[in-house]
């Protein structure tokens, strides 16, 4: 069962991710991204991270993807035009992709020596909402509160950046006195 779920997830994530890159239509890309996020959520589930799976669905597949789609619609983006392939870049890209695979092989060897096979039956002390909440609000309170600052900045930033072009004030007037 563990294996089956993993392989479904693996194929799903990979295919939809490739589709994101390969699709020329932004809307299609966005939808494929959403799909891959959902598959990832399933992967989280298979790793017994239930709360994170929910968060993944809500935040990513929900909020973030909607945001993306909304922007795509707002900007009324058309499909990208076909371009000729730069062979040099492609070769570089292949190198760029092959080397990490080799690295990965080494890491796989290392980690498999130390860890066991995935099994759901094992009673893994999984992190429930309660534990997570406790950790966040007690041990991790400081970073958590720091996140508030981050969100504040994000809010201000979005407001500033998406304001309509502010009417430039008179140059000569200098500092405003309204």
């Amino acid at each position, binding site marked *: 069962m563990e294996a089956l779920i993993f392989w479904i997830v693996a194929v799903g994530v990979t295919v939809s991710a490739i589709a994101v890159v390969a699709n020329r239509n932004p809307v299609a890309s966005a939808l494929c991204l959403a799909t891959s996020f959902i598959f990832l959520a399933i992967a989280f589930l298979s790793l017994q991270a239930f709360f994170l799976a929910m968060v993944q669905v809500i935040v990513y597949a929900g909020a973030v993807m909607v945001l993306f789609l909304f922007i795509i619609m707002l900007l009324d983006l058309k499909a990208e035009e076909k371009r000729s392939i730069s062979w040099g870049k492609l070769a570089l890209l292949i190198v*760029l992709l092959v080397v990490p695979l080799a690295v990965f092989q080494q890491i796989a060897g290392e980690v498999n020596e130390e860890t066991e096979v995935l099994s759901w039956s094992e009673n893994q002390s999984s992190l429930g909402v309660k534990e997570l909440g406790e950790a966040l609000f007690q041990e991790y309170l400081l970073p958590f509160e720091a996140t508030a600052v981050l969100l504040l900045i994000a809010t201000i930033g979005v407001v500033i950046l998406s304001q309509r072009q502010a009417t430039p004030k008179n140059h000569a007037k200098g500092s405003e006195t309204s």
Partner: protein
Amino acid sequence: MNWLILLPPLLAAIVITLFTRPFPKLSSYISIAACLVSAVGSGILLFSDQASGMLDWEWMNLPGLRITIGAMGDPLARMMLVVVTWVGLLIHFFSLGYMAKDPGKARFFAQLSLFMFSMIGIVLANNLVMMFIFWELVGLSSYLLIGFWFQRPAAAEASKKAFIVNRVGDFGFLLGILGVWATFGTVDFAELEKVISNGVGANPITQGGLMLMALGLFMGCMGKSAQFPLHVWLPDAMEGPTPVSALIHAATMVAAGVYMLCRVFFILDLSPAALQVIAWIGMGTALFAAVIATRQNDIKRILAYSTLSQLGYMVSAVGMAGAIEHPEYGTTAAMYHLTTHAFFKALLFLGAGSVIHSLHHEQNIWKMGGLIKKMPVTGWTFVIGTLALMGCPYITAGFWSKEAILAVALEANPVLCILGFVTALLTSFYMTRLVIVAFFGQPRGDEVEHAHESPLVMTVPLVLLAIPSLIAGYLHIDQFIAGGKVEHHVDFLLLGGSFVVFAGGLAAGWYVYWQKNEEPLTFGFLKLAENKFYFDELYAATIVRGQDLLAQAMAWFDQWIIGAVLVRGVGATAGLLGQCFRLFQNGMIQTYAWIFLLGVLLLCLVMGVLS
């Protein structure tokens, strides 16, 4: 005492330069007064006990090297001192007349005083470095005085040439001094003599080293006394005012080389080979210059070559001294001839000056003629001088001193002796030519018609110089120099030879030139002599040109290889590389992402992630 002799001319030079330059008359009097003080001082010194009242002044004192400005009081120095100061004094007087109307009179006298100071310094020098110091200083004053009329290109070139050629000699001289110092551990003459007589040098040295050292010292003499092959500057130096030629380039400075050789003879004596070289070079120069002198037309140049020739005699005498039984005879002969030569050559130059002065700077003998009637005093004193130079037997000083040298030559090397006689013959010939063409016969040219005798201030020194030119032979100068050790013995071979060459030269000259208006002898070899054997041209084509070409090549190398290729090349390469690196910054985000990710990849690789 030594300071009393040494310093007055310097003070005069300084005072004139700083204060009295606007007042030429006053300046000249100051200069003469200074010279007079020195002359009187040296006169007193001559007759006083030696070395009394000499004060050394320590110039430098470093471990292993102590240099003083001191004084030697031996007869050699005292004799030379008298010659220098008294001849100098007379020439000072003569200059009063000769330079009377020159706008640079004050400058002239300042430089003359500077020269007197330097020359006295050489004579007094009690160590090699002091000698070198004043050696350079006479070079400077000679340079300044030759270039006295610096507006004339010829004078400017001549002064430059004189200085540079002298510098070449100084180069060797300095190396010689260094060698002496390194070998014997001192530069002081007295100490050197002690060390050498004890036979211990501070450092071991090979015979070859000794020879190099001796030749180095000789090279100094070669420059200053204009010995072959560094003789080229002296004839050109005649561009200077005639009193300068008389004083510096005839009587005193050029003789300094000989004086120096006598002074360091005890060092030279260590290397017979070097002495051989000196002897041959000296005699060679004597002959060579005599040949050239027969074909010159400029009165001063003839005298200049004759000076060269006589200096060759003296140098050769020193060189030959190594090969005879009593080496001091050689040096004494050289000094003896130096002394007499100083008198009669100064006389001849001053006579020439007097002529030139009255002919408004006409120097070509073929444009003179019959001057003996216009300028009797000048003419007859000139004749006396000429006789002395030709070595007119018994009645002139030149005869005795030349005899002394020839005697040395006879003992040392018969070939050299024969060459000496040939030179004497030639001397006799060209001096006869000079006198006959310039002073006898018909006046040739307007200038001569209007010539008149020079003023008293010029003629009196002529007369005063003529006296010792005649009688100096009877003053036992050589005895004095050698400390009474010279024995005279009459060698009839020598006497006869001298008679023959004197008379032969006179007769030949008379026969060829009497009543001639232009040069009668015109065959090929003489052409060569007329052009001084093309030495100037040779040097111009080889050394000067070679040096210029080398300099040009080096300058090219410096500008283009080092300056452009290396230095600017580095800069240009950096700029080019910068341009290349800039190209990556093409503004495309994707390029930046590529750079970033390839960077990550490389980082992983370098880090050894893939072990």
